[in-house]
């Protein structure tokens, strides 16, 4: 049954540009991007149980890597792919440095990384434009074509993220990460190379946000450090996964969908207090909806890791 739904959803998503206007397409692109971010975070936060706040770092790094490469003349899609690779490499290196930390220490370390990257980007004015931001080369195509391009590109990233998550869940990597999440010391004794597994999970949690950042940069044509390294980009995916009820891979997608719905319907118009309202949502979510909207809940973080299907 689920397979059927998934196929139907995929077909609908693919066909959307033919039936929807640019505004709807834009919203849908955001939805797909949110899904990719949430799925990405799920590798390290969900599977491995490490509370990472580094998503913003990877997103911003991807955005700037792609932007800078394009200003140097690299074609857009090549820049995207390279940016994703750069984010992955950065995560692999960073992971070696901070994944031995646990709990709060890891969380704060991952949080600080985005801030450090932001400061560095701000200072490297020659390369990145510093605080004045970076302008990306504009595409020579009409608005509708561009909308479709970014839509499909984001869809590819999100679909890849979902497929990867499903594969990992069934594979020994997923099993091992689950063991690490529930009892890391016991996992080591059973022969799991926890260091390597965690680095892999961390890298996976970087590649998709990195690609999203790259696409985002081309989409909006202008980025600045405060914008793409915004800590909210780290917090929102977590909220999405919590909303969707952690414990399943598709939960991340449901959560992204619900979150976007709330964002578009409820508080988009209160631009000034946007972040404050997010704060209220987060507080309410944590206090009143311990199982997200689909079940799974905090017990998840102490253990369960489901299969790919809901």
């Amino acid at each position, binding site marked *: 049954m689920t397979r059927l739904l998934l196929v139907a959803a995929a077909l609908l998503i693919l066909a959307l540009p033919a039936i929807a206007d640019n505004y709807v397409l834009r919203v849908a692109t955001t939805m797909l991007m949110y899904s990719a971010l949430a799925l990405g975070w799920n590798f390290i936060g969900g599977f491995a149980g490490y509370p990472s706040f580094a998503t913003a770092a990877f997103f911003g790094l991807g955005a700037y890597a792609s932007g800078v490469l394009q200003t140097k003349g690299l074609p857009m899609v090549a820049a995207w792919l390279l940016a994703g690779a750069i984010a992955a490499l950065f995560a692999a290196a960073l992971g070696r440095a*901070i994944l031995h930390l*646990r709990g709060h220490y890891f969380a704060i370390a991952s949080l600080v990384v985005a801030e450090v990257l932001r400061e560095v980007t701000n200072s490297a004015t020659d390369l990145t434009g510093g605080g004045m931001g970076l302008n990306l080369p504009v595409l020579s195509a009409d608005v509708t074509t561009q909308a479709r391009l970014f839509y499909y590109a984001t869809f590819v990233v999100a679909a890849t993220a979902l497929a990867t998550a499903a594969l990992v869940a069934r594979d020994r990597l997923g099993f091992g990460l689950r063991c690490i999440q529930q009892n890391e010391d016991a996992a080591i004794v059973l022969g799991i190379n926890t260091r390597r597994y965690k680095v892999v999970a961390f890298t996976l949690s970087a590649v998709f946000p990195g690609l999203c950042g790259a696409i985002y940069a081309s989409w909006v044509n202008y980025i600045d450090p405060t914008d793409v390294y915004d800590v909210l980009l780290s917090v929102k995916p977590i909220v999405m996964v919590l909303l969707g009820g952690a414990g399943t891979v598709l939960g991340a997608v449901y959560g992204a969908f619900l979150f976007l719905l709330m964002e578009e319907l409820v508080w988009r118009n209160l631009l000034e207090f946007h972040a404050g309202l997010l704060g209220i949502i987060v507080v309410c979510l944590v206090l009143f909806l311990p199982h997200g909207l689909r079940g799974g809940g905090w017990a998840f973080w102490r253990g369960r890791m489901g299969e790919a299907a809901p």
Partner: protein
Amino acid sequence: MVYVQVLVNGLVLGGLYCAIAVGFSLVWGVLNVINILHGSLIILGSYAAFFAYQYLNIDPFLFVPAAAALLFCLGYLTQLVFINPVMASPVLITLTLTFGLNLLLYNLMILAFKADFRKVILSPPLGSINLGGVIVPIDRLISMAFALALVGLLYALLRGSRIGRAIVAVRMDREAAQLMGVKVARIYAITFGLGAAMAGAAGSLFSVMFPISPEMANALLFKAFVICVLGGLGSVPGVMIGGLTLGTIESYSALFIGPEYSVTVSFTLLILLLMFRPTGIMGRRGFQ
């Protein structure tokens, strides 16, 4: 001679940093909660002091107890209503919660006070004194004295009073404390309230030394974190060491690299510490 001046600057700054960090350390050490609100609470205290000075003509130094009291109540209620329910939850949950609470408080402050910087300008200004060639602004000196006094007061409270003993007991072994009849939920609320009170008091002092704006909240939070990691978690002497060390490091780096990099210095120091020595200078393990 320059180096002595820089050192003194660093120590004076460090004193204030101790006050900034001690509330954060208390909450983290006893509740195992990283209080993301901490920076915003400090700024709230600063604003309270600023407005008290502007409209009621109360000297920020004299306002310290009032700021502490106000924020104690806020902190107490916050813990009781919002955080106590999730105390048994994993790190991610409590962290996300205090994140959400901070988003709320931070943005409320921006809404109320706007993001422009305010500064408390004491009139008449207090000037500086010259201690053997080293110049120290008097307001900073008094701030440092107050800050250290506050930290000392907290230390005495924790060691001497019944509530303080209960707090320490809960920190060491929550279940044993419960068996001893300690009402843990209330202790949690009091501890968080104390942490907030220290933040408020520090904010009051801070308003004299630096311009205030909600944007400072993040930087203050990170400084508090660095100090806790530097000095080792959960002990007042640790906070002293961490605070004075950070103040000194920042002072020297301001001399060599420039003051606009102070935040970057904190961050880099933090990352390096976490990578190589998360137990800090004192080598004591914090709550994992």
